[in-house]
Each structure stands twice: as structure tokens, then as C-alpha cells.
């Protein structure tokens, strides 16, 4: 593939002079490169992006950015210091390189680029981040639904100042206690579905009337004659009402605590809210790793190729680009010591390329698998639609083609703890495609990665114990030691004891308890 595009460009006459020749770059060069990429991105790929703000940083600053999850400003907490120390150690020892760029989902979209990058690498990262990721951030439905790119920086600024003012007023330690506890519950502090609006009086009245009308319409005196049965579980109306008042069951634990924990002060609720908002902001990124990287990698590959074809980058820089591109999309095989899970860049890029192939040169197999768009010719249109309306789980389920499964030689293992051997359930063959695709799609479903834990009930009449349920799937229970620690944090926030029941098919398979060490005041 790489060689093909090289040959093609060699045979074509150069249309314009190269943008740069050496490895050095300066600011005017960056804007020339940006404009050149922007033209192709707009005309050919039709990318729709937020305005960009490109910030050149040093490696020290990159380490700083790593520590605060890439954000330009963030509140202070020891855990960020811990990540900083860890990354710094790894970097200084040479065990870990630094990223070439970091891009932030905000408007204007902030792209950090490292000063050490060569001119080619700056071109690559601009194409990758300032166009690929930027388009994805602006158009994907997950981001549209859950994040507000224009206000995130203002919110982070508020959060930082608010946390600092709380530290001044209430002491670093009390703030740290709350943040520690909230961080522990961060993965369960997101809304996964658009919220249900509170009922207004008018709506409620109308619903009541509708129900009455329905009952009158279907009135039959015969029902009266049926004998009353004692069978069936009797519903406990008190508990139903209590749960309804508290909005239970609730899977957003931080939200529940922020609204309902009885012993928290206002500023503590606000801190929980800050952690929750930030968790929510990052939630779409967790759901779209493959797509986001696939989109960015495909975009940069296409943009760089076009630049090379038109002679705007030299053969030498194109080779340099290909070198780093191929190492980014390298997928080690499962028995390779370098293997550490599926590489989202590799999978995403392979799928995007395959969509293009299916749209333009489909085989009979593709036509049967993807009747909607096989051979439609508009590959970018199909991709833009995918980038806008899917997340990893649905994208893989919908677009992973047999060709990619064969190319990557994907196979599926089933590991049942009751069996003493692992079974190869399906491989990359006719019978296996759908099973592999389904299984891989579930592997990327954050709803399955995070255990499904919900606040189920509160013992309001008794000791105010908070009861949570973990809906166990496939017999996979929680890790006990960590769970106990999180429950301890949770109990500290709640102010009273908490209990977590792990329930599978109606049976409780495990239970964990937590008590507050000291209630926050």
C-alpha cells in the first residue's frame, strides 16, 4: 500500500514546490502546512472542524499535561502528582516516549504539539489532531450529546478556582478526603442515558385521564367474577414509593450522593459535582477509542498521501511519515511479547480503509454483508456518517468486515472458570465472522467494561444503610479488596453504612460492606 502510493506519485509530475525540505520548522511554516492540509481536508474529505488553537510546548510541559489528563488547567490533587512522578520516572529512564501531540475536545480545539517534532512530524500531527480528531469531536453524537466543547475550559477554570478556594477555607485535607472518595467512584459517576425529565403537573394530569379513559373503555363486569388469587409476589407499596422519591434505582452513584447524601455540606456537594462533570466529559472518549483514532489515523494518512502526491512534501519526509505511521498502526499478535490488547489505531485504521474498499471495489461477500453501501462509491460519505452516528461498540458490530477479520486473523476464546480448558469458540472463517464481530463489539462496550452497579435502596426507617446492587454478568464478580476500599469511600460520603450485593439471576452471590471511618463535616 505504501509502495503503491509512492510509485503513483513518482509517475505524476509535481504540481507545487515542497512546503519544507529539512527537519526544522518555524511558525510561518506551521501555518503554511496547516493551510495546505486544510484545503485538502475541506475539499476532499469534507471535514467539519472547530477552529484550531495550536500550542507549541516543550517535553517538560508535555509531562505536565500528561499528569492532568491532558487538560490545560485542572484542579490540584495528589493523584495527578503520582501520575506525574510515574511518567517522569519512566520518561527519564527512557522506558517510555512522549506523545507527539495531545488534542483537547474544546472549541477552539486545543492541539499541543511538541517542539522536538521534525517538520514532517508537525505536518503529521496537525493532520491527525487538528483535522482528524477535531472533526470527530465536533460531529460524533456521543460528544454532541454529553460534552459542551465551548464551555469546558471555562468550567475547568471554575473547578480549579473553586477547589483552591475550598482548600483555603476548609483545609487541604478535608478537600482531599472528598476528592479521593469521589475519584474512587468516578467510573460510576456518569449518566449513560439522556436523563428523564421531571413530570410536570399538566403532563401528569393528562396521563391520569388517559389511564382512566382506558380503564373505562375496557371495562368488563366479568373481571369482577374472577376469584382473587393469592399467587404472585405482593408489591410493597411503601418501598416502591420511597424508591420513587429518591429516584432509585440510580446508576450514577456520584449524582445520587450529590443530591441525596444527608450529611454533606454545600461545598462538598459541589466538589462531587465537579468530579462528576469531568467524568461525564471524558465518558465519550472512553466509548469511541477505536473510532476516534480510526478517524484521525485515516485522515492523516489520506492528507499526507495527497500532500505527497502534489509534491508538497518530499519523498524523504513521506518515508519518515510512513515509518511513524506504520509503527502507530502496528498490531502485535496475541503471542507476541509486545501484545497488550487490541491496538485501537490499528483496528480503526484497518476498518476505515476497508470501508473505503467496500464502497468503491466491493466483492460479492461485501455485498452480502453490507448491502447498504457496498459499491456506492461515496466512501467519505459513508465514513462521515459512521463517525457521526456510531460509537465503538455499534461501529464494530455494524462495520467490521470479514476481510478485516481475516486480515487480522481474529479469533475468539471462551474461558469458563468451570471448565479446565479454554475453548476456541470461533475463528476467522465463514461460520465465525458474526460471532467474532459480536464478541469484539462487546469487548469495546464500556457498559460491559464497567460493572453494572446501581444504588438500589436506602433503609430510611432503620439505620439509613445504603444498599447497592451489582448485576453480575456471566458470573464475573467484583475484585474484593478494591471494592472494600471504594465502599469505604462511599460510606464516608454517605455518612452511614453501605452494603453492596452482587446479584446474578436473582441470587445474591456475594456481599460487601462498608462503614464510614468518620463522617465529613
Amino acid at each position, binding site marked *: 500500500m505504501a509502495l503503491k502510493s509512492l510509485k503513483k506519485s513518482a509517475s505524476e509530475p509535481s504540481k507545487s514546490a515542497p512546503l519544507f525540505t529539512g527537519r526544522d520548522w518555524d511558525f510561518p511554516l506551521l501555518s503554511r502546512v496547516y493551510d495546505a492540509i486544510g484545503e485538502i481536508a475541506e475539499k476532499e474529505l469534507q471535514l467539519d472542524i472547530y477552529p484550531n488553537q495550536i*500550542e507549541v510546548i516543550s517535553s517538560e*510541559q508535555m509531562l505536565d499535561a500528561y499528569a492532568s489528563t491532558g487538560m490545560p488547567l485542572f484542579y490540584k490533587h495528589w493523584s495527578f502528582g503520582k501520575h506525574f512522578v510515574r511518567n517522569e520516572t519512566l520518561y527519564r529512564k527512557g522506558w517510555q516516549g512522549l506523545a507527539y501531540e495531545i488534542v483537547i475536545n474544546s472549541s*477552539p480545539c486545543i492541539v499541543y504539539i511538541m517542539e522536538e517534532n521534525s517538520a514532517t512530524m508537525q505536518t503529521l500531527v496537525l493532520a491527525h489532531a487538528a483535522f482528524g480528531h477535531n472533526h470527530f469531536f465536533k460531529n460524533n453524537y456521543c460528544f454532541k450529546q454529553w460534552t459542551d466543547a465551548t464551555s469546558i475550559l471555562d468550567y475547568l477554570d471554575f473547578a480549579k478556582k473553586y477547589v483552591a478556594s475550598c482548600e483555603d477555607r476548609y483545609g487541604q485535607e478535608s478537600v482531599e478526603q472528598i476528592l479521593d472518595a469521589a475519584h*474512587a467512584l468516578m467510573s460510576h459517576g456518569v449518566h449513560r442515558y439522556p436523563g428523564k425529565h421531571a413530570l410536570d403537573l399538566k403532563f401528569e394530569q393528562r396521563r391520569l385521564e388517559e389511564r382512566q379513559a382506558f380503564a373505562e373503555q375496557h371495562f368488563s363486569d366479568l373481571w369482577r367474577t374472577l376469584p382473587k388469587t393469592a399467587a404472585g409476589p405482593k408489591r410493597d407499596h411503601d418501598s416502591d414509593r420511597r424508591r420513587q422519591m429518591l429516584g432509585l434505582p440510580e446508576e450514577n452513584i456520584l449524582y445520587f450522593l450529590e443530591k441525596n447524601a444527608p450529611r454533606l455540606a454545600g461545598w462538598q456537594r459541589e466538589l462531587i459535582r465537579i468530579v462528576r462533570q469531568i467524568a461525564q466529559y471524558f465518558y465519550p472518549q472512553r466509548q469511541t477509542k477505536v473510532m476516534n483514532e480510526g478517524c484521525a489515523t485515516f485522515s492523516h494518512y489520506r492528507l499526507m498521501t495527497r500532500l505527497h502526491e502534489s509534491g508538497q512534501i518530499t519523498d524523504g519526509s513521506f518515508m519518515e511519515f510512513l515509518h511513524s505511521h506504520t509503527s502507530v498502526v502496528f498490531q502485535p*499478535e496475541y503471542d507476541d511479547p509486545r501484545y497488550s*490488547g487490541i491496538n485501537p489505531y490499528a483496528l480503526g485504521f484497518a476498518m476505515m480503509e476497508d470501508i473505503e474498499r467496500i464502497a468503491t471495489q466491493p466483492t460479492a461477500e461485501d455485498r452480502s454483508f453490507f448491502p447498504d453501501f457496498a459499491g456506492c462509491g461515496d466512501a467519505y460519505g459513508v465514513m462521515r456518517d459512521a463517525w457521526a452516528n456510531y460509537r465503538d461498540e455499534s461501529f464494530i458490530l455494524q462495520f467490521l468486515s470479514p476481510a478485516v477479520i481475516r486480515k487480522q486473523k481474529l479469533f475468539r476464546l471462551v474461558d469458563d472458570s468451570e471448565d479446565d480448558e479454554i*475453548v476456541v469458540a470461533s*475463528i476467522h472463517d465463514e461460520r465465525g465472522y458474526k460471532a467474532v464481530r459480536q464478541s469484539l463489539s462487546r469487548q469495546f462496550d464500556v457498559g460491559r467494561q*464497567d460493572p453494572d452497579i446501581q444504588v438500589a435502596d436506602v433503609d430510611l426507617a432503620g439505620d439509613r444503610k445504603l444498599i447497592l446492587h451489582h448485576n453480575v454478568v456471566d458470573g464475573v464478580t467484583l*475484585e474484593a479488596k478494591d471494592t472494600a476500599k471504594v465502599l469505604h469511600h462511599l460510606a464516608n460520603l454517605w455518612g452511614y453504612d453501605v452494603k453492596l450485593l452482587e446479584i446474578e439471576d436473582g441470587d445474591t452471590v456475594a456481599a460487601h460492606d462498608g462503614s464510614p471511618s468518620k463522617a465529613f463535616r
Partner: protein
Amino acid sequence: MHIIDRRPDPGGKSLANRQRFMRRARALVKQAVREASGSRKIREIDGGGAVTIPADGVHEPSFHAGRDGGMRDYVLPGNKKFVSGDRIQRPKQGAGSGSQGSADGEGEDSFRFVLSRDEFLDLFLEDLELPNLAKRQVMGDAAEKRHPAGFKTSGSPASLSVGRTMRRSLSRRIALKRPNPVELEAMRSELAELEAASGDGIRIATLRAEIERQERRARVIPFIDPVDLRYRRIEVTPEPIARAAMFCLMDVSASMDEHMKDLAKRFFSLLYLFLTRRYKQVEIIFIRHTHEAKEVDEETFFHSRESGGTVISSALIEMAKIAALRFPPDQWNIYAAQASDGDNLSSDNARSVALLRETILPMSQYYAYLQVGRGDFDREDGVFARQETTLWRAYQELIRPNLPMAMRKVNDRRDIYPVFRELFERRDETAEAR
């Protein structure tokens, strides 16, 4: 699109977070630092460097699935020989897949902390002070300090003082009225204008003459002349430094077992560390003794055993001899630490005390006696009411306020640090024994 250069921004954005982390982990790091001291050689103890703290203390918990049990599904790339229905032996550790493990794949078994030497020592020796240090002496070797002392007219190009040279060049140019390039340029452009407009002929002629005159002047008077050159002058002065000699005296008779030696070693290590913090140069002299004393190297000191009686005075004599020979007390700060189980030949006690009082203590900055016990046996002092050793009693009589001597008993490894702290705690009155 904007491009912003963030490089000049103030760095150290993570400093506050790092400090918070340090505070959080301080107790753990402190403990790790003290543990680390046990496993190092005395001379290497102050290396700073990495200590490992258990990740537990700084672990951030979250709800996540356990590693075993249940039914799991994996999709892996790179199938080579499997067909569906194959059964594979379960690998020893998990299923060989990282996808279900921790979210970011980071192992968190323990956390390595890299401390600078100063951080290491700060943590180690918080609030301690070395008693009675003094005696600085001008030494011949390597004890010199370089400091700037004005300027000179010749020197190596590296020591050229550009600022001073330019200053002299400027004053010379002003004094000799070297033409200013700005003025010259102004005249030239005026000339060009006049010539273009073919204006006033006389003015053109004067301008030409003036320009030529000025240009000649500029050629004759150089911008920088060799007389302008100034070089930085560095003066080297010998610097008095404080040196310390640390005498480690240990009883190696058969009654001292490995445990006791280990205790002694830990104490000596601490003392060494402490001394290096205050003195640029610290010599250690190991003297071991049974009924006769010998100077040995560290390895032999701690690890070989000898049989014989115990005559402490032999070690004191040896120490006095070495000190007189190699470490004259007027040039060296002498510290001594003696470790023993206290079983001295009873007839020797009086002699040892006399030696201490008349020879050793007057020349020493500090003398510490550490009586090591046999593990938990001595911990039940109350029950068995063990008698004080004769040496202990003899030394105790010697103790006076203002005498640079202290003595303590240590039975267990964990007592070492507290005892050390007790001995060297910051206070006004030095060396006060109980």
C-alpha cells in the same frame, strides 16, 4: 487558526501536585528510606536514589471485575493454528489477555520513588543535630575555592568578559569620535536624494567630502581594539573544611552474635550518614577487638568472628594510637561509637574508664556507647530484673553533664532509629545520659 508558543510559560505546573503527593506518601517514603538504610553498605547509605514504597498506600481504588471466576470472552489477533472447537490448556497466569485487566494496563505492585540525595537525607535525619562540631582547618589537598576577582588584560578566550570589553570599546569610540553608522547612513540617503533630484551642487559636494572623511575615520578607528579586551580574573583561595574521623569500635568476641552485629552495623550506618551531612570528608576507622584490638576493613569488621575474651581497653588504646598517628585531634573532628554486649573482663573496667576520661573523651567531639542485647530476651527486663552489666555501671559513673558522651541500650532492630534520634535530637544541652 492561532499558533501559540507555550514554551516560555512558567514550568513546574505539576509541582503543586507533586508536593501533595509527597505529603501524602511522606510517611511511607520515610519508612522506606529507613528500611533501605539497613540493606546498604555504610559508605553507600547516602546514595539517595530510588526507594520503593508499597503501591497500596497511594493506590486509587475503583470498582472493577475480579481476575478469576465466571465466563469470559476474548477476541485476539494473529491466529495461527487454531480452528473452532480447539481446546487450549489454561495458561498459568490468567488467560494471557490484557483486555480484561486493569484499564490502563499499569502494574501497581509497588511504586518506585526517586529521591535526590538531599531529599533522602532530609527524610532520614529530620530534626537531628550533630552535637559540638567545630574545628575547621585549612587543608592542602583539593580544598580550594574559586571566586571572581576583577579583570585582567590577557587571558583565554573562554574567560573574555564581553560586557566589560564592549563598555571599554564604546568609551574609546566616543572619545575618538568614531562616526555613528546611523548618522553616516542619514548623510548617504540625503546625498542620494539630492543626486536623484539633481539639486544643490555645493551641498552635494560638501556631503560627498564629509562622507568620505567619516568613512576614512571609521576605517582607522576600529570597532573593537585589542586594548579594549578584558578577561575575567579568577582567584583561588584555599578553603578551610571540616573533616571528621569516625571510629567504630566493636566487640567481636564469641558472645556477640549476628543479631547484635547487625544492630551495631545499623547504628554505625546512621552515624556515618549523619556525619557525611555535616562534613565534606569523613573517614571511617573500624576497630574490632576481643582481648586485643585490630584495625580492619568493613567486610571483616562485620562478618568474621573471632574467639577470645573481651578487653575493651585494648580497643580504646588502639583508637588513641591511630588518632595520634593519622588523625591529629587539632585537625580532625573525632567521633567514636562503641558497640558491645557489655561483657567486659571485670578487671578491665577501671582501666577503660580511665582511658576514656583521660585520653579519648578530651580529643573526641562525641562518644556514643551502644549496648546491644540479644533480641527479645532482654525485652523482659521487668520479669527477670536482669542485672546491669559491669561495663554499663562503670560507664554510668563516668557520665557527667557537659561530657560529650552518651550511652543507650538497644535490643531490637526497630529500636535503633529511636535510640539514634534520642542521642542526636536537637537540644541545647549536648550529651546528657539518663
